[in-house]
């Protein structure tokens, strides 16, 4: 009994720990979101919130329903597999209401270099240039048609080829 009394201060210290732990539990119950851990180590409700974001990309098929001319050119060119919005950016707002939302034309000197600047990390088979050397600062579209970039395979040539098939 007296042994317990002489260890009384230890119980006080332990009590402090228990108290701190209880405070922790209370704060935790308060700050951890309700849906946390529902599916995994994240907030379950986040999925719904993200799904509710407005759609920003319209998708290639949507663009092609109106811009059939460009879609035709592009389908036969080297960029056939590059999506419209990979170059033009997210344009769902424009696709929904083309008259009031007019997209800006991309600056090809910046845009093309983003994919085609030579780098050892790219597969050797991918067409690469050193932009400064190759174009001397001129916008790439002065020589290349962005929708069918191989020079000489322009609109008419492509159309003719397509028609012959």
């Amino acid at each position, binding site marked *: 009994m*007296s*042994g317990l*009394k*002489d*260890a*009384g*201060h*230890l119980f*006080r*210290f332990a009590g*402090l*720990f228990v108290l*701190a732990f209880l405070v*922790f539990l209370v*704060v*935790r119950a308060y*700050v*951890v979101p309700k849906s*946390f*851990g529902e599916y995994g*180590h994240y907030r379950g409700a986040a999925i719904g919130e993200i799904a509710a974001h407005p759609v920003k990309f319209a998708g290639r098929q949507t663009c092609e329903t109106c811009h059939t001319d460009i879609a035709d050119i592009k389908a036969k060119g080297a960029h056939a597999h590059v999506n419209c919005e990979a170059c033009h950016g997210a344009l769902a707002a424009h696709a929904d209401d083309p008259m009031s939302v007019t997209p800006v034309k991309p600056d090809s000197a910046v845009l093309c270099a983003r994919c085609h600047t030579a*780098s*050892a*990390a790219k597969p050797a088979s991918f067409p690469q240039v050193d932009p400064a050397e190759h174009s001397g600062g001129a916008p790439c579209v002065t020589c290349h048609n962005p929708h069918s970039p191989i020079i000489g395979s322009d609109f008419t040539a492509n159309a003719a080829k397509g028609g012959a098939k």
Partner: protein
Amino acid sequence: MSGVEGYMYPNEVTLYWSVLIVLYPFITGLVAGAFILASLERVFRVEAVKPTYRLALLTALAFLLVAPLPLILHLGHPFRSPEMYFTPHSTSAMAMFGYVYMWYLMAVLVFEIWLDYRREIVLWSQQSKGLMRTIYKIMALGSSNIGERSLHIDDKVGWIVTLIGIPSAFLLHGYVGFIFGSLKANPWWSSPLMPVVFIFSAMVSGIAAVMLLYMAVTKLRKQAIDMRCVDTIAMYMFYIFIIDFSLEMLDLVHRVYEADESFRTLNFMVHTKLYFSQIVLQIFVGTLVPLILLFITQMVKLPEIARKRIYVLSGSLILISVFAMRWNVVIGGQLFSKSFIGYTTYKMALVTREGLLVAIGLTILPLFFLWALVKLLPPWPDKDLHEAAAGD
């Protein structure tokens, strides 16, 4: 690209782990080392080092309080850091470390310091005045039982806490080595020896730091340095340093002999980018010189003043060496490309959030904490208190 030689993958060009991440293992290492020194007296009954016992505990606490700051500064978002505790992520070593830290801080260090100081805290709470009196009263937790039996219980419990504290200190610092050692993607880090090397270098640096602090504080207080104590500390420092050095050499020999596909790259790096920090600073100036100096003190009976100077010099060199080791691990591991055909450069900023000034500030900050702790809990015997206690 500036600073890049050969080929780097785009995500390797800039270093993400800055000088603050170098500082972090250095600081936790000092904590673990200081605690091990304290446990020498407590558990292994090395009576000679007793004058540094309390100072070592307070040093460990001061540095432990600063230890998370480099990480928080590096990550940003300080308000998110408690979430590590609120939503524990059991498969992340980094996340679980929050608990190791809290355990070590509260259950080991604070508890042990409280137990050890309890008699004084109670006496101070009776004899000091004003604000200090209130602070001591709170710290005494409303219990003023300092009878012989209760102090005896404190001593027993304190012993157990220290005993638990030793593996905890190893865990605390072994974790840091573990984080690096378990990164299999990086051949510079991935080595099971990493935690062991980290722990031993931590012990050496912590012991050196406490020894230097003890000598400095004693000088400032215009007291005589207890040479028996400093001699014993230096001896332990010497022995542990030999083990540490042997382990690092073992790691090196193993790498050289194994010579896996990364070896040529790493070897080249050590001879170029890391030449100064690894070969010159860490190995020659920071390891071989203090080892030789300490060896001399063990072999030849030198006069006191010469021993003191040697201890101060080798203690400082050891701290530099251990810091250089952390630097070489953290920065070195990010300088080469995983393609093994390129190297980048670390450019340390000066006044950014992770710059040099912040790093210097974080190195000095623990000393302020220590100063405050020493003011609150003087680690040396309080003569006035003794008389009062005897009068009780």
